């Protein structure tokens, strides 16, 4: 249950920069546990979201970071709806880093699902206070008053006051403890397509991103980092760099050893009057590196290690029945091995920020997904206390998980502290590609037993460096959180199931990237189930529906597997097979699944629940003379109640293109510890001519809202592989596809 507190108004106004005389409210809301790599203490925090000034302007704080997913619009829409504000008289302001807002850690596809109810309560509380204020003003019964379209009306007399006129009285009132939420069917904005609040700024070049932040007197920094993770500077010669016009200073950024977590990997910083001078100075550096222990990392030998790890018994994660015995006893056993390379995030805006560290405070302006984490990290780098660090969250030019890792803000803060001036640090594309927190490379071994043409056993063994390696040098196994991402949460009704995780150590920073381990786990299971369909001579959709089994809520209690369920209670957010089957059937229907296709054409399907949402993808391809073309993608999404349907559609469009990019091109490799790729020529992304036609259906639902930003990604690549099989009879078991096809 939420509780509502009255905030110190002056403190709040300082945050939003409003004039005095406004009504402001603070609301305590629950926060809970989180996904891989994120931090949370699961406690209650006081918060402040809404203020109204005397003109009636309602200001709503967006406390989550905006990186294209639309929650900066979606969450305030919910507040405005509940408080009956007129959206045209609502101003949305980005909140500073502040525990008062609850979790600001914008990842895990959580913004709407975690804050739908709290934001409703925020709005309903404001509405109730405005009603009370009006009733008091008129000395009438509150029950006879009605709030609608930014004003309160006394029904019997017809008199009315707009929100701004009620501010004076409302701020003298106690904050009600219990308020009634409006019936969801009466929503005015929720469920409608509402343009994002920054739309006009974005098309006129006025949006301010991390790279655009400006502080008068700031200098510009570039950092040359060791090509190998964990390497250090032995010595350097800055004499040529210092001769470049505009270069002021060159010094070492300390590397504190593996794991670096969110601190800098270290390097040599060049400080200059502008970005170009810093880049030119950096090019003139001569550095002798000690490459450190990870110089042994080589992607081809590492691949062999991964494949060995999945081809012998490994740590058992989920065990139901006895898959080993069933696989031994069966007459028909099919096996397959899959391999997917590492990936890097490549947001269009590389990491960038401005930091200004002074004696007793620091200010940063940065494109970050987790501003409260930035306070901790900057505090760690400067010796300040977290509460002395002001974090201004700019727009993010894409995030995809990269900007959850504030190593770049750490670097800027360390530099600013040393030079005593504000500094802008903007990573180059090469920096971003070569010094990432990489999505893991992975290998998979799967086996199935088919008896009497029924699947009697399923074994999936995977191995990949864990995100835990970024925080613990000795980590060798995936965490429970990672194993809950498309791996051991396999939704099939098979009597004997076993999931095992092989041991492997990391050699780079490993990070979460849009949908995380679901990418490779759902790839392996999504393709293998299609191989089973072929082995059983069954239609892939019929095969899927049969394996999903009877309508039920999945439980993993008996299997020894600790399912994280994306940090949510399984009672509140069950794994509902009925919904999974429904999106499967709808995708088949929308894609006219059973219609005959032309020679060289084929359709493939993959269906999965991730981030609590149920998603199906059907991909329609043509393959001719090794030329691969995706013609059309059909997507059905059941993400519970939809707040802003247009933004759900846009996230699915984006997820499909993101999924095709990684399927076509996604490959990060290392040689002697150094990442071999550097920019968009050798780490390509999908471009407009390759974009297929996209058909999206949103399932109308009154269930709780669930994740949107990530769950569209995992099913894309496996559906594509299955489509290629349907078109050609060729089964592909590794990515990327540009190794085999012209794409």
């Amino acid at each position, binding site marked *: 249950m939420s509780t509502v507190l009255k905030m110190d108004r002056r403190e709040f106004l300082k945050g939003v920069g409003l004039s005095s005389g406004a009504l402001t409210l603070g609301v305590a809301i629950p926060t809970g546990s989180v996904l891989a790599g994120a931090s949370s203490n699961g406690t209650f925090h006081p918060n402040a979201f809404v203020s109204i000034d005397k003109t009636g302007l309602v200001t709503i704080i967006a406390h989550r970071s905006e990186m294209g997913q639309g929650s900066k619009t979606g969450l305030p829409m919910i507040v405005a709806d509940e408080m009956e504000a007129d959206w045209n008289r609502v101003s949305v302001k980005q909140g500073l880093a502040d525990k008062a807002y609850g979790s600001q850690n914008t990842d895990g596809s959580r913004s709407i699902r975690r804050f739908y109810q709290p934001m409703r309560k925020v709005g309903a509380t404001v509405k109730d206070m405005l009603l009370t204020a009006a009733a008091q003003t008129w000395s009438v019964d509150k029950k006879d008053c009605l709030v609608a379209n930014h004003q309160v009306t006394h029904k019997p007399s017809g008199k009315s006051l707009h929100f701004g006129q009620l501010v004076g009285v409302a701020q003298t009132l106690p904050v009600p403890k219990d308020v009634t939420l409006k019936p969801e069917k009466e929503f005015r904005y929720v469920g409608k397509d509402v343009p994002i609040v920054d*739309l006009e700024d974005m*098309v006129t070049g006025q949006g301010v991103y991390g790279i655009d932040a400006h502080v008068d007197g700031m200098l510009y920094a570039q950092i040359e980092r060791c090509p190998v993770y964990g390497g250090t500077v032995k010595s350097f010669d800055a004499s040529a760099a210092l001769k470049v*016009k505009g270069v002021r200073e060159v010094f070492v950024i300390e590397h504190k050893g593996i794991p670096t977590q969110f601190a800098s990997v270290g390097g040599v910083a060049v400080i200059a009057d502008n970005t170009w001078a810093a880049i030119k100075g950096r090019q003139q550096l001569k550095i002798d590196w000690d490459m450190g222990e990870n110089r042994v990392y080589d992607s081809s030998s590492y691949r062999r290690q991964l494949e060995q790890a999945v081809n012998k018994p490994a740590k058992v994660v989920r065990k139901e029945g006895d898959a080993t015995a069933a696989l031994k006893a069966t007459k028909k056993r099919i096996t397959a091995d899959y391999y997917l390379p590492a990936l890097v995030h490549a*947001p269009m*805006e590389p990491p960038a920020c401005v930091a200004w560290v002074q004696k007793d405070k620091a200010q940063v302006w940065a494109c970050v997904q987790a501003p409260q984490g930035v306070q901790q990290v900057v505090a760690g780098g400067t010796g300040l206390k977290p509460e002395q660090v002001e974090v201004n969250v700019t727009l993010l030019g894409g995030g995809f998980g990269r900007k959850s890792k504030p190593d770049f803000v750490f670097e800027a803060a360390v530099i600013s502290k040393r030079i005593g001036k504000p500094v802008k640090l903007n990573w180059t594309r090469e920096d971003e590609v070569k010094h990432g927190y990489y999505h893991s490379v992975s290998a998979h071994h799967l086996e199935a037993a088919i008896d009497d043409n029924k699947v009697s056993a399923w074994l999936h063994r995977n191995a990949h460096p864990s995100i835990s390696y970024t925080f613990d040098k000795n980590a060798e196994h995936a965490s429970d959180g990672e194993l809950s991402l498309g791996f051991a949460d396999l939704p099939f009704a098979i009597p004997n199931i076993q999931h095992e995780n092989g041991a492997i150590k990391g050699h780079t920073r490993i990070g979460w990237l849009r949908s995380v381990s679901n990418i490779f786990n759902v790839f392996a299971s999504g393709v293998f189930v299609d191989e089973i369909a072929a082995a059983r001579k069954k239609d892939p959709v019929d095969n899927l529906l049969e394996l999903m089994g009877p309508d039920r809520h999945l439980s993993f209690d008996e299997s020894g597997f600790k399912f994280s369920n994306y940090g949510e209670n399984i009672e509140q957010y069950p794994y509902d097979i009925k919904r999974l089957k429904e999106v499967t059937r709808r995708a088949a229907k929308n894609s006219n699944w059973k219609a005959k296709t032309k020679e060289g054409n084929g359709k493939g399907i993959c269906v999965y629940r991730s981030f609590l949402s149920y998603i199906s993808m059907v991909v329609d391809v043509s393959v001719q003379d090794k030329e691969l073309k995706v013609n059309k993608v059909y997507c059905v999404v059941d993400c519970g109640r939809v707040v802003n349907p247009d933004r759900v559609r846009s996230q699915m469009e984006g997820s499909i293109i993101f999924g095709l990019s990684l399927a076509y091109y996604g490959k990060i490799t290392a040689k002697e510890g150094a990442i071999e790729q550097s920019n968009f020529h050798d780490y390509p992304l999908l471009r*407009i001519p390759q*974009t297929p036609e996209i058909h999206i259906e949103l399932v109308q639902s009154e269930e709780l809202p669930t994740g949107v930003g990530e769950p569209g990604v995992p099913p894309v690549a496996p559906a594509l592989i299955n489509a290629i099989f349907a078109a050609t009879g060729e089964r592909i078991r590794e990515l990327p596809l540009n190794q085999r096809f012209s794409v």
Partner: protein
Amino acid sequence: MIELTINGKKQQLDVEPDMPLLWAIRDIAGLTGTKFGCGKALCGACTLHLDGVAIRSCVTPVSYAAGKSITTIEGLGAEKMHPLQQAWIDHSVPQCGYCQSGQLMQAASLLAQNNNPSDKEIDQAMSGNICRCGTYPRIRAAIKDAAKATQS
């Protein structure tokens, strides 16, 4: 000193002649609508117009722009929103929005040369501009709408 004409305004910039136009415009002239994406003319985020034609400012030395007319996203619809900007709004094209300045400048250059582009011509003209969010389907639709608006 290099004299540049940016969005119709003459400015003297104290910069080295080899500085890419992108950094001169962003760091020195203070116009940040033009974005950095790759520094190698691979992504199109830095696209602006030089004498009306789309170029990649990240690889164009500022000295090359001297005496030419530069239009950035800030100048595209300065008096009245360009039909492309309106179409971008109508189709809710942007997600993160970062690459959209470059996309719009590239599309504006296309429509200035060809106000009735075919699907293929749109794909060709826009193929140098990457959008990691995947707004391509909407970019296509918005360009078609803007082309219609330009014709009428």
